[in-house]
């Protein structure tokens, strides 16, 4: 499946596969199977990802969170010590756990980024609604996308207004107080705006039901794509169960 084919795939199919992959990969116990999952995800990304550079950049950013796991888990988890630095012990169990999390986390990220990175937010919202996700959550997602720019603009305006009166960021009480005031004002403005938006919706006949204009159609190839992906995921789960049981 090329990146062009990915664009033509029903967004519901992409989200189903992404969600299913996240669930299955997070359930894996064995390091070997998790590694296989990551390898499969990398192959999938190689075939489908339209822009490798941007994908790796995003992956790298997300791995900053994984770094925190490496900085804490192996050093705090009780178990067989493999390294001792003063009062701090580096345990084998912690190392294995951190490795497992890293492998699974990167596999899930690769799958998600490959499948959803190029999906329009409106398309995603529509697909989520068609997959029977709570309508309020779907619209919260769409509204966040719409208004995050407006809130950012308001924040910039406040920053400019402050800068025009000679405000400069410093490590001082005055800076903290000013930033606090600006953040507070942004929140208040956002709340006021949300009331006005609700009024604007009422004025155009909104009565509590949300509708979307996009209509999605699942084709045979979408069903084949979802079935094949779920088959691979099921194989991974079975392999994990087998390896874990044999090991026990």
């Amino acid at each position: 499946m090329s990146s062009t084919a990915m664009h033509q795939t029903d967004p519901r199919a992409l989200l189903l596969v992404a969600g299913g992959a996240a669930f299955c990969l997070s359930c894996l116990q064995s390091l070997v199977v998790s590694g296989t999952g990551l390898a499969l995800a990398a192959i999938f990304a190689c075939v489908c990802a339209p822009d490798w550079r941007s994908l790796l950049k995003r992956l790298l950013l997300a791995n900053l969170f994984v770094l925190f796991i490496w900085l804490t888990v192996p050093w705090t988890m009780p178990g067989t010590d493999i390294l001792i630095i003063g009062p701090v012990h580096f345990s084998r169990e912690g190392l294995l756990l951190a490795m497992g999390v890293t492998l699974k986390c990167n596999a899930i990220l690769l799958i998600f980024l490959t499948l959803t990175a190029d999906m329009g937010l409106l398309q995603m919202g529509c697909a989520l609604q068609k997959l029977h996700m709570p309508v309020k959550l779907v619209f919260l997602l769409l509204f966040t996308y719409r208004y995050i720019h407006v809130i950012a603009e308001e924040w910039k305006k406040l920053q400019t207004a402050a800068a025009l009166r000679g405000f400069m960021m410093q490590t001082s009480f005055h800076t903290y107080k000013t930033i606090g005031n600006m953040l507070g004002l942004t929140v208040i403005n956002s709340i006021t705006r949300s009331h006005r938006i609700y009024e604007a919706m009422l004025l155009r006949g909104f009565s509590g039901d949300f509708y979307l204009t996009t209509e999605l159609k699942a084709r045979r190839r979408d069903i084949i794509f979802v079935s094949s992906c779920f088959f691979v995921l099921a194989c991974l789960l079975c392999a994990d169960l087998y390896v874990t049981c044999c090991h026990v």
Partner: protein
Amino acid sequence: MSDSPLLSLNNISFGYTGSPLLFDGLDFTLTEGEQTGIHAPNGSGKTTLLRLAMGLEKAQSGTVLFQGSPVDSAQALHHLRCTVGFVLQNSDEQLFSSTVLEDVAFGPLNLGLKPQEARDRALETLESIGMAALAERPIHQLSGGEKKLVSIATVLSMRPKALLLDEPTTFLDEKSRGRIIRLLQEMGIGRVIVSHDRDFLRQTTVSLVTIKDGRIAPCSL
């Protein structure tokens, strides 16, 4: 133009909590096809008058009648809002969908049109105001003038009997202002326009009123 009142506010008294009365015995009537401008100083209640008419504020006393019936239930209010369009001063508060097309189709969908019909109506409305090329554009990428025109389109797509416009030329440059004047001149439907821009009102309305001592008073164009 028919003489039957479409929307009337009778003997309205209203004041915001903790503030003196803004209106005291105010009467205002809009007949079908009537084109009225309201030109009054800041703080006189121009926007509040429109908000009262659309049921966004509740009067302390007096009645709001729509097509002769009191607007005193949720159903009556819904009917009023589906028949009279209100264009807000700040377009960022009016446009809340992700794309232009989605926003213009929002009203028709609430009217009960099927998704495809709503899309067609939205596209038709955008074409009628020369904005069809922006249909798939995200709202945050529009200029101030484009946002204002799209705001008007969102209301026009509901095929309203009258339009209420709150300061439609605020923050607009001459070119965008000119486009809105031409659009309003081409539309035959009734309207109430609240504005500080006297020249704009002269070009887009037939009669002019002001708000004096909490009541509507005549004013010359």
